[in-house]
């Protein structure tokens, strides 16, 4: 009951006029920043951080959290409409969101994404409210072996994600992993794979460069080939009634939403993991659990719902270790953490008791931010659809310009723009030969998390590989990963067997 009293107090803080205005402003700003390819919640929060000096800390964190939330909703917009993930958290949303948009069902996908985000956000805030402190200990129990096991699990969940061509799918995963090792080897402190001694490679190959290259430039080249310069109009239409119908049509996806929310939240809590593995795993699990997994990647609405519920849930989850341990669960919370320090708050186990107004104001504002993000997002859907209806020969050059600028802005280095162009062109040429591209993009996101975790574990265990299996948590995760890895194979074998039987008995 004490929680309830604190929460009510939190709501009182959130509904102060200044704070409420900041929630709405934050959600709108976040939505637009998230919808730009290349800009995600990290950029939004980092850029607006200094402005928060003007208001008290509680209002400041409410504003930044609203931006974080808005950007999570917004990320889905560029994934669905343009097929370019605005941030790594929205990669999984492109897999089915883009095919839906191409079928002229962009409005359906956008509504589903918004609704799933809302469910994910709300479930996770409730979990946050109820179990904040005990879950902090779960986060602490995660050392390098556990992190590595989690990454293996993430890989296992999307094992069936590639195309039918096994060597090409493997190749795609491997090239992504290799590219992810470019830059600095943090274990030995030595630079590695600095091609041509270009300084641009010192900061590694940013996930965004590959993703914008492949999904932005590559995808546009592909579409241009299909349209041959003809004026291509999207068939999508939108009306208020349509939005309502779309919402009703989501009933069958409720199970997926709830699964995605819980999964996303728990993965989000773990330090270092963040929302990206969470959304990928949710997609993988949704596909594995589905009765007809072959429709995934071709425009299954559940393929949009699962990752969107998960990434919003994870973004709430990643605030937990930030508040209770002072450990950022994602790059965005790292910046938020910096903000707390600047405002004179000491993140850590005592923040809940020392600054209850701050913590509970933040939690309550998340409930409110969710509602506004949903409403504002749905309100803007007609505008987004209108953009999609522009002739392709106008849309395409604007997207190209967005890609170039979006590739430049995160690192402010032209090197990355050139790299992006190369990835785009090569990716297009490879795609024409049935090389699946999604595994490479996922690998470049997860590689930098997996490799150091594995090597830190091995240094700790003096080269003993058993450390991954002997520790209870990492052992359990490894076992689940193994099961997930084998399950699709078993399913396939079983399918083949029954088919053979069917053929055998006329």
């Amino acid at each position, binding site marked *: 009951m004490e929680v309830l009293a604190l929460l009510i107090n939190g709501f009182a803080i959130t509904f102060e006029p200044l704070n409420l205005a900041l929630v709405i402003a934050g959600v709108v700003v976040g939505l637009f920043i998230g919808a730009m390819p290349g800009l995600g919640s990290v950029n939004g929060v980092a850029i607006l951080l200094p402005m928060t000096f003007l208001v008290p800390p509680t209002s400041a964190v409410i504003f930044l959290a609203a931006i974080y939330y808005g950007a999570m909703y917004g990320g889905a917009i560029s994934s669905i409409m343009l097929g370019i993930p605005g941030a790594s958290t929205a990669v999984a949303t492109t897999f089915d969101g883009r095919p839906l948009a191409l079928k002229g069902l962009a409005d359906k996908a956008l509504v589903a994404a918004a609704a799933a985000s809302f469910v994910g956000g709300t479930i996770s805030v409730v979990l946050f409210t109820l179990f904040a402190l005990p879950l902090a200990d779960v986060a602490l129990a995660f050392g390098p072996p556990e992190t590595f096991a989690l990454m293996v699990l993430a890989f296992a969940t999307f094992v069936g994600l590639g195309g039918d061509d096994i060597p090409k799918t493997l190749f795609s995963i491997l090239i992504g992993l290799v590219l992810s090792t470019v830059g600095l080897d943090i274990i030995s402190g030595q630079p*590695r*794979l600095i091609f041509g001694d270009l300084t641009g490679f010192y900061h590694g190959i940013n996930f965004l460069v590959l993703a914008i290259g492949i999904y932005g430039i590559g995808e546009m080249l592909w579409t241009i080939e299909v349209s041959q310069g003809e004026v291509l109009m999207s068939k999508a239409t939108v009306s208020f009634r349509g939005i309502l119908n779309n919402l009703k049509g989501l009933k069958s996806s409720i199970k997926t939403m709830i699964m995605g929310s819980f999964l996303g939240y728990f993965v989000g809590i773990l330090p270092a993991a963040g929302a990206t593995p969470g959304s990928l795993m949710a997609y993988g699990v949704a596909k594995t659990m589905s009765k007809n997994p072959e429709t995934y990647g071709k425009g299954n609405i559940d393929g949009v719902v699962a990752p969107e519920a998960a990434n919003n849930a994870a973004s709430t989850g990643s605030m937990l270790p930030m508040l209770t341990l002072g450990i950022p669960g994602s790059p965005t919370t790292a910046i938020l953490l910096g903000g707390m320090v600047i405002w004179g708050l000491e993140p850590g186990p005592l923040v809940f008791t020392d600054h209850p107004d701050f913590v509970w104001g933040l939690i309550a504002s998340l409930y409110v931010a969710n509602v506004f993000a949903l409403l504002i997002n749905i309100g803007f859907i007609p505008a987004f659809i209108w953009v999609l209806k522009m002739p392709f020969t*106008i849309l395409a*050059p604007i997207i190209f310009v967005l890609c170039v600028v979006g590739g430049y802005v995160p690192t402010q280095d032209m090197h990355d723009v050139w790299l992006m162009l190369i990835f785009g062109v090569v990716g297009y040429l490879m795609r024409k030969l049935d090389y699946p591209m999604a595994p490479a993009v996922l690998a470049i996101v997860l590689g930098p998390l997996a490799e150091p975790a594995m090597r830190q574990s*091995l240094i700790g265990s*003096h*080269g003993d590989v058993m450390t991954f299996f002997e520790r209870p948590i990492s052992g359990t995760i490894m076992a689940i990963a193994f099961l997930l890895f084998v399950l699709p194979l078993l399913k396939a074998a079983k399918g083949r067997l029954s088919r053979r039987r069917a053929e055998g008995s006329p």
Partner: protein
Amino acid sequence: MRVAEFVMALVMALFSLYLMWKSTELPIGWIPDEGPGGGAFPFWLSLGMLLCCLWMLVRWVTRTSPPSRSTEPYMTPQTLKWFLLVAGSLTVMIGLIHIIGVYGAVPLFLIFYVRFLGRHSWVITGALAVFTPIAAFLFFEIALKKTLPKGFTEPLFYPLYDFFF
């Protein structure tokens, strides 16, 4: 298509070899008590890439993968024309950014694309070419404070900064 499949696998195999060679700058073996060295991850994964390429080549010889069976051309002349035009104009634009900056290169690219590839009217072209850079400037430079490259046109922007800040 068949030729392209072969060439791509071969090129990627060579790229894998290059990556393997480049990875050996750091130790690629198992360091006792520490686990794999700094070059191990990229080295062995690149080896995996090479093996995948060989596998693809085997499938090419036995004609078991769809592209190695396909007799369709990899690119029709029409496709090739579009590919070269679009990729080429993108390359020129990015190159020009170094010299005349984003605010010079982007309008030129838009004019070329919208007017000459898209065959839209000069009015739409002009509006886009003018409006896009202004929107980009206001959004990125003023609202987000992220400066975009300007090449030698840099001093022209000083008065704008004076005005906005």
